């Protein structure tokens, strides 16, 4: 410990902060007014992919408090009941950690459908919770479109995250 210089420790800390940083930065950037159709629906998709990937491959850098903070941020940026996405993201985080041993050895073609299934479950839960929490019976269509987005966008997001995982987030390189 003593022999590590200040810069090296700073480097390690920065690498440790990358996963949470990608989560927060992505959520904020997706709020920018690009005028893309269905842009607001992408934010939960991104948060789910982020939490899934980092919980799977770098769980130490995305601890439960960070997941919760990301969820609360997602709720505050949108108009969902505060804490709802914190609960959902934490459930995903916990599930991935429980399944981690089986998932981490398998390839992308295995984790992709697993993520799609978990994302679909999260959207159904979000729909049910928001319907229950007083917005009335909400339309089911966004659940389908968001699941579609999740299935289609996960490969691209995973490709991006894998690069970050091997480069800036690689704590073992510090």
């Amino acid at each position, binding site marked *: 410990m003593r022999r590590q210089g200040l810069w090296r420790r700073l480097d390690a800390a920065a690498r440790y902060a990358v996963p949470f940083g990608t989560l927060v930065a992505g959520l904020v950037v997706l709020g920018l007014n690009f005028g893309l159709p269905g842009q607001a629906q992408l934010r939960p998709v991104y948060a789910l992919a982020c939490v899934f990937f980092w919980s799977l491959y770098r769980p130490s850098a995305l601890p439960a408090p960070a997941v919760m903070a990301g969820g609360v941020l997602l709720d505050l940026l949108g108009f969902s009941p505060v*804490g709802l996405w914190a609960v959902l993201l934490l459930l995903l985080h916990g599930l991935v*950690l429980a399944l981690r041993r089986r998932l981490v050895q398998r390839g992308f073609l295995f984790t992709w459908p697993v993520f799609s299934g978990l994302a679909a479950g999260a959207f159904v839960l979000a729909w049910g919770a928001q319907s229950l929490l007083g*917005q009335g019976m909400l339309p089911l269509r966004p659940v389908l479109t968001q699941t579609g987005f999740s299935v289609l966008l996960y490969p691209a997001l995973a490709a991006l995250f894998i690069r970050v995982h091997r480069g800036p987030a690689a704590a073992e390189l510090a």
Partner: protein
Amino acid sequence: MIRLSVPFRQAVSRLTFPVMLMLSFGIVLIGRADQGMSGALRTGLDDVLAPVYGVFAGPIEAAESGTGAIGHLFSLSAENAQLRAENAKLLQWQAVAMALEAQNNALKATLNYTPPAAPAFSTGDVVADLGGVYDRSVLVVLPPGGSSVPLMGAVAMDGRGVAGRVVEAGSRSARVLLITDINSRIPVALGASGAPALMAGTNGPTPALLYWAPGQPPAEGAMVLTSAVGGAFPPGLPVGVVHYDAQNQPVVLPLADLDSLRLLRLFSYPDNLPVLTPIPHTKAKPAAIVHHRKK
């Protein structure tokens, strides 16, 4: 660094997850019990993020509208021809409008009509699209001076028509709930007769029309204006045009360009502030009443 014993650290790491989960459930419950808390948190976050979004909004807008970009040069001549044709048509309409205005003034003069006071408004850049899955809202950055009138419940309009209402206002930013949001219910008047109806957002691009009089179905192409019923809106602001969708249900095609809002004007109508509005006006109301009494 604090050195902790290994079993203690293991216990802490095992406990974090359930503790965080319970905390999150707690936040949901607190948010349910105290609606004001989430509103205050959201406004605070918006005020912090508004300058950040403001920095990025400029370049995006520039890239999109073609200032400095060469994208628009190619369509220039075609656009010119189209604009010329449109201009000719508009000049005809201008003549009609001036004639009607003169007639209107004459009629108002015979009626001793007193025009309503012009509402105070502030103009703001739309910097972020902060909706959720079930919500349509945008974030507007307010001009640095701030407005003298409370913005809560102000009517947001773009160049063409009503875009929404302010539901949360901080010192630097305001959130506008768009008319397409599923929580939006706006009393409207249809066509020349001003038949009453309710425009309800569906989260889709076209809000639905509800509760029109059974004998008078809304006519295709009829103008949809706001109605003063319930007191939430001033009467006569343009909202959209009636259209029948594929299911033969009447919907409203909004005039405002809701997919690419860039600038919004927020009109505060202090004297019209409602009694029956769903949006709380707790801060605005006493001020409005005092103001009224002074006169």
